[in-house]
């Protein structure tokens, strides 16, 4: 049920014709299990054959024993049959099991591969791809592949073998009577494909209309206040009726074909029985065939029905799998973010230099224009500027979430391109405005999945940033569960947790996006203290909103529309006749009493 809400918007085109290249790539996932696959094919061969032994053995029983009054022979046949169905039981079970397990292994591999690959993709990828879509890749699409690899391929073969086995037995017994198959099977296939084609079309239409219904429902449920506020009840009800009825129409169409199809197939099989009894009966009368042949034939004919049906069903699965695999491979083929150069370093000084940096998220749309500044190790820098001035971008570039187009960024004098990306990020600690908490507990949210960090270190860090106090008041303290997005904690508390997280990783460069949210006065004081503690003895770059933070920074950088307009200490900037001076002036003119 969990996946129900994921995918209502994605619809329509989820079928694709057979594609050899995709299929080969898919089958490559079975390579590690090649022996198992081979084994499962052998099992399929055996089971399709043993399954069809029954009627043939009853022919022998009838002709050689029952009609000849041979009691012992009959008992022998019965014993053989008992043996066969027992062996058949185990073989069949084994075949089902092995086939499905192979599929599960392959799914396990693909799922793991997708997840691991997602971890390496650049942020720009996540900027433009909705999470819901990625979720579908890792869940629904993978499941579609499972159906393809197990049910699709295997069942298809098993059904073909079954058909071959039945036909062989029939021809073996009597080529003339057996040739009824040559008429029956093609006719059944024709009927099946005629209907399957129409049923599938109606079915596909129904499915896309159903996802329309679901999307509409989902939207109306989430937006119910808006629906009600704008008096849309009647009109939306009518809309719903309309799409609900359209879905009904599509379903009735598929129901119609469905209602015709099965009875026709049944009629063909029964009609064939009529034909066999007439023609075969004559043969028996003329003593051209034995009784048993007729008896066995009558048992074989209804058995054609199911394999044919299943083959045609598999074709639809195959098409769906093609579309899914294409989407999955497209994701896996998305290039990873660069791992960067070879440079690694333990502690760093934290010297940062932006040297004529130009950057745009999308071509031509410059977000940073020729920005140059230098931060010495241990210095604190406040970035000041309006929304959209490029502050957040500078932070992202420092972590190398994106690559710049022109200019250089150097850290400890080494070009950021030459740094190993993970080694670089290991030295940088970042606290974002919108604190993201993982579901788990408080401790896990501070040390993340880094097991080298001890409980004591976590608690120490929490104490240092004033988070310990509120954590101690929680029922389970550091083991208190945290839900996704941390809805049980206030925004101030979440900030403090994020500070503790940054501190416990002990970075050489701290990047802080100061939160603008209004928190209560007490928390506000705690936050300010924590920020001061965090900035001690390391290079820090702060997107500052609080005047206190700005004033206490060693250097202030004023950004405006992607350009660096002013930089210097508070005193220097106030002395300049510029933006900062104007800001500062306004602050006092309006009677600033804070701090």
């Amino acid at each position, binding site marked *: 049920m969990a*996946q129900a809400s994921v995918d209502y918007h994605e619809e329509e085109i989820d079928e694709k014709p057979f594609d050899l290249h995709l299929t080969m790539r898919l089958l490559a996932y079975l390579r590690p299990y090649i022996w198992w696959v081979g084994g499962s094919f052998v099992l399929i061969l055996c089971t399709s054959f043993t399954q069809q032994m029954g009627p043939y053995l009853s022919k022998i029983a009838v002709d050689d024993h029952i009609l000849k009054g041979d009691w012992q022979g009959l008992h022998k046949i019965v014993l053989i049959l008992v043996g066969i169905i027992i062996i058949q039981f185990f073989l069949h079970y084994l075949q089902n099991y092995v086939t499905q397990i192979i599929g599960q292994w392959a799914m396990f591999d693909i799922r793991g591969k997708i997840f691991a690959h997602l971890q390496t993709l650049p942020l720009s990828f996540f900027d433009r791809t909705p999470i819901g879509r990625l979720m579908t890749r890792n869940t629904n699409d993978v499941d579609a592949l499972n159906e393809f690899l197990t049910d699709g391929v295997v069942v298809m073969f098993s059904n073909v073998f079954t058909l071959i086995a039945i036909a062989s037995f029939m021809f073996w017994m009597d080529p003339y009577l057996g040739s009824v198959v040559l008429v029956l099977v093609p006719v059944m296939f024709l009927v099946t494909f005629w209907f399957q084609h129409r049923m599938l079309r109606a079915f596909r239409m129904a499915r896309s209309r159903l996802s329309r219904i679901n999307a509409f429902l989902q939207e109306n449920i989430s937006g119910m206040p808006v629906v009600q506020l704008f008096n849309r009840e009647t009109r939306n009800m009518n809309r719903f009726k309309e799409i609900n009825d359209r879905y009904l129409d599509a379903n009735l169409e598929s129901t119609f074909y469905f209602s015709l199809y099965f009875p026709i197939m049944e009629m063909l099989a029964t009609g064939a029985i009529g034909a066999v009894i007439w023609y075969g009966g004559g043969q028996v009368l003329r003593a051209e065939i034995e009784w048993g042949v007729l008896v066995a034939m009558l048992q074989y004919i209804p058995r054609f029905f199911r394999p044919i049906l299943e083959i045609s069903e598999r074709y639809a699965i195959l098409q769906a799998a093609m579309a899914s695999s294409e989407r999955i491979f497209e994701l896996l083929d998305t290039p990873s973010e660069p791992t960067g150069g070879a440079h690694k370093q333990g502690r760093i000084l934290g010297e940062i230099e932006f040297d004529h940096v130009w950057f745009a998220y999308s071509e031509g749309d410059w977000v940073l224009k020729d920005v140059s500044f230098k931060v010495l190790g241990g210095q604190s820098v406040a970035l000041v500027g309006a929304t959209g001035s490029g502050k957040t971008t500078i932070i992202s570039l420092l972590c190398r979430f994106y690559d710049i187009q022109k200019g250089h960024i150097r850290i400890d004098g080494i070009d950021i391109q030459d740094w190993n990306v993970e080694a670089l990020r290991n030295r940088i600690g970042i606290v974002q405005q919108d604190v993201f908490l993982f579901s788990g507990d408080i401790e896990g949210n501070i040390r993340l999945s880094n097991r080298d960090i001890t409980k004591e270190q976590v608690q120490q860090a929490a104490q240092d940033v004033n988070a310990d106090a509120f954590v101690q008041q929680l029922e389970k303290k550091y083991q208190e569960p945290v839900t996704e997005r941390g809805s049980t904690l206030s925004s101030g508390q979440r900030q403090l947790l994020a500070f503790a997280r940054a501190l416990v990783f002990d970075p050489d460069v701290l990047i802080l996006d100061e939160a603008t949210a209004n928190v209560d006065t007490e928390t506000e004081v705690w936050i300010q203290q924590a920020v001061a503690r965090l900035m001690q003895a390391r290079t820090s770059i702060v997107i500052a909103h609080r005047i206190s933070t700005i004033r206490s920074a060693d250097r202030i950088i004023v950004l405006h529309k992607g350009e660096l307009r002013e930089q210097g200490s508070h005193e220097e900037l106030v002395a300049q006749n510029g933006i900062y001076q104007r800001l500062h002036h306004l602050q006092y003119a309006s009677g600033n009493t804070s701090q």
Partner: protein
Amino acid sequence: MNFIKPFWPYLKNYKARIAWGVLMVALAQVASSAIPYMLKLAVDAIEVGLESESKDAVLSTVAFYALIIVALALVQMAFGMGMRWQIQATSRYVENDIREQYFRHLLTMSMKYYSQMPTGDLMSRATHDVNSIRMFLSFGIRMLFDAAIALTLGLTVMCFIDWQLALYALIPMPFLTLAMNRVAGRINTGFREVQELFADISSRVQENLSGIRVVKAYVQREGEIETFEKLNRQYLNKNKRLIGIESIIRPLAFLLSGTSLIIVLWLGGERVLSGQISLGDFVAFNGYLTKLIFPIILVGWMIDRYQRAIAAMRRINAILEEKTDIEDADDVITPEEIRGDVELRNLTFGYDKKTVILDNLNLKIPAGSSVAIVGRVGSGKTTLGRLIPRLIQAGAGQLLIDGIPVEKLPLQVLRENIGFVPQDSFLFSDSLRENIALGVVDPTEEDITWAMETSQLLNDLGDFPQGLDTMVGERGVTFSGGQKQRTALARAVIRRPKILILDDAMASVDTHTEEEILRRLKVMMAGRTTIIIAHRISTVMGADQIVVLDGGKVVELGTHDALLANNGTYAEMYQRQQLNQELSEI
């Protein structure tokens, strides 16, 4: 017919269809049950004919039976088609009706209800549960009748031929049904476990992707992969266990049905040998058994389907029986016109008994004036905004419009006179035009243009590929936060409401545009009431009265200048915001 009772309220509209369907099931089954008997007659005729001289006469007898078989096959087909059509179509109609009623009901439920009921839950009832019901009604009912009639007729004929052999042949059948039932139960448990783990995996992935910035910044890639790997392996193992059980179904069915056939071959063969039954009887037995195996295998499956359908029906009824807490009173007062006076009289409100969100508020907002409400996160601003259009409601008589308690006003009238712009500016995936015209019937082109101009959306129109017909949302253009808010504003102003409520509705609009909007709103809202809830001082400073809420209480009240002079919470807020304010105005 007790088993059908839970579904009867929906089925009863289709009595005729069902009756026809059941009748045709019976007729089709009669025809099909006659076929093995015809085979028997044919085989018997051949057997006799082997000894007789006139082979031609025998042949024509056989041909006659063969023709009857074909005729019966045609009859079976005709009724089979009719029966499937009647019953399957009924299940589709019922599905349609249930869904319609479900949505009709949802439309009446209040915000409080939706805050407690997760969307995913409501959705899964509308999808999975409706589907379970439909599955049972289409296949379940048909198979049930089919199996019952097939069993009765088949058994009767078999007993008529040789009742002892019939009993022997059926020995494995109860085991089969029993085993299937047990397996189905275990599969259900296994399946639920798999589904639960699947949900865990999904939320794990979802979380990882939502927090990808943190994962990257703190270089947590390996740890994340490890955690995922662990879940993935658990999922694999649960699946393996499920497969271990599931894989047995078919082999088991073949084993037990095969046993029946062997018994017939063995004991039936002996009886043919000793002349107790004819070869034709033997053939007929085989025919009947083959016919019965499938329905018997399905009994377990049908029981399972039935239980699921019952559970699903219960889950849907649970929703339908829920009463809304906000609806028209019996003694509604319908005023000729709403002027827009709003008054709070000792207004106290909490979402549950423990917490108080609004604490004894008293406030008069005269028609035609504007009031701004400011305060920290959680101070009760949004709650206050929601009380006015009765999205939620406080005790009787605490909130009055034009002197009438809101709960006495017809919801329709009340809401028609209110333009509400909520915090999250929810837009529908429909065209921009439809989104703006949401709350008005057939607006003119001028109306829409005017609303877009008022909300400063008109300048953006050029950015949308199909203009007003551009689709909003995932399947169309993704609007920026500011565009969304301005669209939400446009759809509120186009109603030319007597009371306009903006709940933090311009947070993503830049100050310059905001100023422009406020200027236009002032003109438009002359003589109408405006209630602005906001964080930004720039948004609220022009209001006639500014209310500062804290902890559900009014802590300050007055004009911008008066409050600044007061040097309290408002003044503090103002100073804190100054920097951002000035920066964005450079």
